């Protein structure tokens, strides 16, 4: 059994493209959920419009940068649309509306009616060549020790982590300011915020627009990195995993989602690698677990881990114990 290899796989995964995507999605979700208390269960919709914004624009002959701008703008619009029901609906109702909205978007994208634009279930591929033509790294394998990536992947995840850094910086700057104080007040009690003269609806829209825009960067990154978009990459499950990442790191903490994402992917890959090797090496008997079942079992373990986290450290890794002891209502 090769622990080192498992570790290398896990670190590669913790710093790799998936971790970047979930970190970006988590930072956006954190603005809405962690700071404003909005249960947006349609976050994957922001990724979808971001990714498709790029893919469709380039596919129709536009430049990549324009596609990125269109993707972000579409996510801002989507955030504002998500915000409309918050005028009347709270918490769980908003969750239902947003999850439905994101599903509608996905189903529309894969519908035959929109196939001329979205290419339906086949999705759109090979639209990010201009991004890779900017790659400063010559062909080859780069990395430290055994943790290596090929030139194109390295270029993509480097840009990805820069995007993560910039969005974290943005969220930090916004939430330390009085603006962030209003968001937290809305999370704690929106009627109290209203009674103090704060335009709660306006702030919710801003939160959803900004959170959605950051989320769209995750979709754009994913689309560009894989050079493909497909409607079924944007399942509701993604949103729930993004929640797991935010909660793992600690909602309402600037760096929470980033740490959460790195840790999430580290644990997910590490358990898989260890389990796989253990089953292959015969440490785990075949009647208990076969190599084919490992992929499913690791999700069970991650779920179990999250449950334990909720039970013993509900504030997440970064959250404050003191705050978690206070019942918000």
């Amino acid at each position, binding site marked *: 059994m090769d622990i080192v290899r498992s570790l290398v796989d896990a670190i590669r995964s913790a710093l790799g493209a998936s971790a970047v995507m979930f970190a970006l999605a988590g930072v956006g979700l954190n603005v809405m959920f962690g700071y404003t208390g909005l249960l947006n269960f349609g976050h994957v919709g922001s990724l979808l419009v971001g990714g498709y914004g790029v893919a469709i624009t380039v596919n129709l002959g536009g430049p990549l940068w324009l596609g990125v701008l269109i993707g972000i703008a579409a996510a801002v619009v989507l955030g504002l649309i998500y915000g409309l029901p918050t005028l009347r609906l709270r918490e769980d109702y908003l969750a239902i509306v947003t999850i439905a909205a994101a599903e509608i978007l996905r189903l529309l994208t894969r519908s035959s009616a929109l196939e001329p634009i979205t290419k339906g279930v086949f999705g759109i591929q090979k639209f990010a060549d201009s991004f890779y033509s900017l790659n400063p790294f010559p062909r080859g394998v780069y990395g430290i020790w055994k943790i290596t990536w090929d030139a194109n992947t390295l270029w993509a995840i480097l840009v990805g982590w820069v995007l993560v850094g910039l969005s974290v910086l943005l969220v930090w700057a916004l939430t330390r300011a009085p603006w962030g104080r209003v968001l937290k007040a809305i999370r704690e009690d929106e009627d109290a*915020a209203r009674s*103090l003269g704060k335009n709660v609806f306006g702030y919710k829209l801003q939160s959803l627009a900004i959170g959605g825009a950051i989320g769209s960067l995750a979709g754009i990154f994913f689309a560009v990195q894989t050079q493909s978009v497909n409607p079924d990459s944007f399942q509701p499950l993604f949103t729930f995993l993004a929640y797991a990442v935010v909660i793992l790191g600690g909602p309402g903490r600037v760096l929470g989602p980033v740490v959460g994402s790195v840790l999430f992917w580290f644990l997910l890959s590490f358990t898989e690698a260890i389990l796989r090797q253990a089953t292959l090496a015969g440490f785990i008997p075949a009647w208990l677990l076969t190599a084919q079942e490992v992929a499913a079992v690791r999700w069970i373990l991650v779920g179990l881990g999250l449950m334990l986290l909720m039970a013993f450290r509900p504030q997440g890794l970064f959250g404050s114990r*003191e705050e978690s002891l206070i019942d918000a209502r």
Partner: protein
Amino acid sequence: MPAELLDALPSVPGIPKPDPILVADGVTRHFGGLLAVDVDHLEIQRGAITGLIGPNGAGKTTFFNVLTGFDTPNTGSWSFSGRDLAGLSAYQVARLGMVRTFQLTKALMRMAVIDNMKLGATGQTGEGVLGALLPWRWRQQEKEIEARAEVILDRFTLGPMRDDLAGTLSGGQRKLLELARALMVKPALLMLDEPTAGVNPALTESLLVHIKALRDEGMSVVFIEHDMDVIMDISDWIVVMAEGKVIAEGRPADVAANPAVIDAYLGREHGEAATPLEDSIGDRPVGEQDR
């Protein structure tokens, strides 16, 4: 003293006041078949403490909600300092200077006491998205707000709790904080929904001293209250509601002697002295709100 202008007024429901800050006209609010609020005409005197009393379900809180923009009436008009408030949202009403508190205290639990206070300040540059990104544009203002918040906190004996989370305060301290926070908005009219509910007698006493002091500084106060001692102690004027209507108003002594009021509160115990009156009113259970 504006409050003394009230002394000459007869105790008639709907009587015009010498200098009204708040005027309600034909305000009704029904929930299905229930007519929760049906106020023909009511004026609230500027610079006075007006107590709003009535049995449970009389529509006091609903009336409060309507006046402060937290609810929309079915009919009627209402104005604050001569400005028509119809169609304004709760936050706009608050910005105009009519600030309310809640029956169930709404401290922002997972925020520090000082942040609760700073939130109350209006017109903050750093509360806009773009403003927030330019710290040099809000730092100075933030300092001023903090200084003002600290003065008010000290006044309400909350100074030592400045950096504690509001959720760690006792129920009574949260009531004080809510009142202190409302003052950060610089209100002209404070609308207090049961400010002393669930507060121990000593703290109630200090709350009342604060409320009187605010009145003496020129602020107008309307408050809903169930404790008769409190009402009689601090009100300059009392408005009595029952079944959504204003059934009586007047100076405390006149209202206490008003047969319509005794009827509404006591029903068959009619005619007994003021002491059983307060016993029979009884607080509703915590967590219940008459909307």
